[in-house]
């Protein structure tokens, strides 16, 4: 019985880099050899969701959405476009952040599809946010004396979007690693524009919970926070804003450790990938190699 992994991502008609994290994480997982095939599929690019399964030979497919929250895309668009028979969001039995997987049949290919919850609501995503903070500060022990802002789009489009942000902010806060942890949003209170109002710490790491870098993470958020007047001229890391040092990390989805979350999703759905998880964590967690 062969097993394949299909990573489903949004993609873009306008932004050439939107698909880059998807390909990067697919390549990382491909290199582990855990799956007979690893394929990328997109809503706005090709292969399109609609036709992705027909280029996969395996009878058994683990389908992992590279999306941040549970909602419209994961509950309606992906199941419809992948033609997952008998799909119903109730099968995930989720409170908005607790989907694991459901096993269904693809109507056009007959394959067995283990349809997983999105990467963004998996517990291990908290580790990726922390890892992103380590990457941007260059400090594997970052936390003491630092505030952490986890930034999301907000509820205008999907109430679960805020749930995912708050879920990880709460988990990281409970871990006690950072002095302060806040969930901030682009289009609702508390707003990322006022980031310095919410922190007492001099140093604040800002991690946007987005899959890819694009308009929001590279134009909107840096300008809204006051890192720069014009995104095209770039910004300093850290940047001085209102007496605070803002360490802005860019989209969390570009962090190599994201590949681990994709694997964790597949593992929770029954894929035999324990060895690959160990390997990917070792390669991407930033911990010094043995004997270093």
């Amino acid at each position: 019985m062969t097993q394949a992994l299909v990573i489903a991502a949004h993609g873009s008609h306008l932004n050439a880099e939107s698909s880059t994290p998807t390909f990067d994480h697919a390549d990382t997982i491909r290199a582990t050899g855990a799956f007979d095939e690893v394929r990328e599929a997109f809503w706005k690019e090709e292969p399109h969701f609609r036709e992705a399964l027909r280029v996969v030979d395996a009878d058994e497919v683990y389908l992992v959405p590279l999306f941040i929250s549970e909602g419209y895309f994961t509950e309606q668009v992906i199941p419809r476009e992948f033609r997952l028979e008998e799909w119903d969001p109730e099968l995930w039995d989720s409170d908005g952040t607790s989907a694991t997987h459901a096993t269904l049949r693809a109507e056009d290919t007959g394959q067995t599809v283990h349809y997983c919850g999105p990467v963004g609501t998996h517990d291990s995503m908290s580790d990726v946010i922390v890892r992103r903070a380590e990457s941007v500060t260059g400090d594997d022990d970052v936390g003491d004396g630092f505030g952490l802002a986890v930034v999301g789009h907000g509820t205008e489009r999907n109430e679960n979007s805020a749930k995912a942000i708050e879920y990880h902010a709460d988990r990281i806060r409970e871990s006690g690693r950072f002095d302060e942890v806040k969930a901030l949003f682009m289009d609702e209170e508390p707003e990322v524009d006022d980031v310095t109002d919410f922190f007492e710490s001099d140093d604040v790491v800002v991690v946007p919970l987005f899959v890819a870098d694009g308009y929001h993470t590279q134009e909107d958020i840096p300008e809204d926070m006051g890192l720069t007047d014009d995104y095209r001229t770039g910004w300093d890391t850290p940047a001085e804003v209102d007496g605070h040092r803002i360490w802005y990390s860019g989209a969390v989805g570009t962090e190599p450790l994201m590949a681990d979350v994709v694997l964790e999703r597949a593992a929770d759905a029954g894929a035999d990938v324990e060895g690959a998880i160990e390997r990917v964590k070792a390669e991407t967690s930033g911990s010094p190699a043995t004997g270093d």
Partner: protein
Amino acid sequence: MHDSQVAAVAEAAADGIDFDGLRVRADGDEYRVAADGTETTVDEDGLGSVLAEHADYATNWYFWHATAPQAEPRWAYLRWLERSDELSVPERYDALREGVTRSWGQLRITATVDEDGRRRYALRNEEDAGVPDGELTTYEDPQEARSLAKRDDDGKYRPLKTAPTLRTGWRFAGLSAAGLVEAVDYFYPATVANWHREREGELDVDHWRETMERQTGMFGLIKTWDRNEGHEHVDWVAEACCVDSQCVKRREWQYDEETDLDVDGGDGHFPCREPCSVVVSAARKWTKLEAEEPQTYEFELTPSEKEQIEAIIDAVADGETEAIREADVYEGANRYRARFLRAKLFDEDGDLAGVETDRE
């Protein structure tokens, strides 16, 4: 012929081989080998030498059963590439030794064979057909196709993989059979699978109506564009987006199961089975724009100014603005000509002939 190839033939002969003009059958301790109009019976020790006499037939069987990807669409595609349905094994091997070339969209694919029957595939842009190898950048890893497919020769992002804007200047020289289909799939995703389904009479076409009916969320409003008043609007969409000058797929979807569009679907090698995401996104914009009521505006234009506006629309629609020479003021869409027209006809608010847009 390698010993391992002879052993593979011997093993398969138990069930009988009958492939591309080679027949081998095990009969007790003997093997009956038929090819090229001859038939020979040998024992196991003699099998290698009789297969060597028909080496092309034997290595051909071995390649197609032990080396080539076995998934049916890819296998059929690789067979098509070397014209296996048109050429006998001797003819095909003669051709493959020189190189058998076929086109696939803008790709030029050349298959060759070595003395062991192993195929190698070279790949480049059709536009680079006559360019010496040394003038092209050579790639080995099929995954490089992903980045090659991302931008055109001007560095512009290609949101549609099958737009006829594939960049030039690269080549793959010695891809394996599996590597070739992987590269093709990165350049033109799912085209081999859909081409194969079509050949088998199993292509699942989703026409305009059913595709738009399926849309939800921000795209749900496209449904409102079909008002049971014919399909002229969809003809315009197809003419705008789905002709050979814009996409190398051959459009097989129509307005609906009963109603063909009036626009030709093109001559592409591989089919387009439903309106793509680029068409769906554009259709959403057109649905909104086409909801507007026409207004009557009054402008005064000279005959040449009217023709110049037509020339500008043509040049933009055909992507020819870049090709118009800097000082070619005889072209209506020349930049100086357009700037002169703007200087003369636009007021300070950018309104044509000072006539305001009526949005009432």
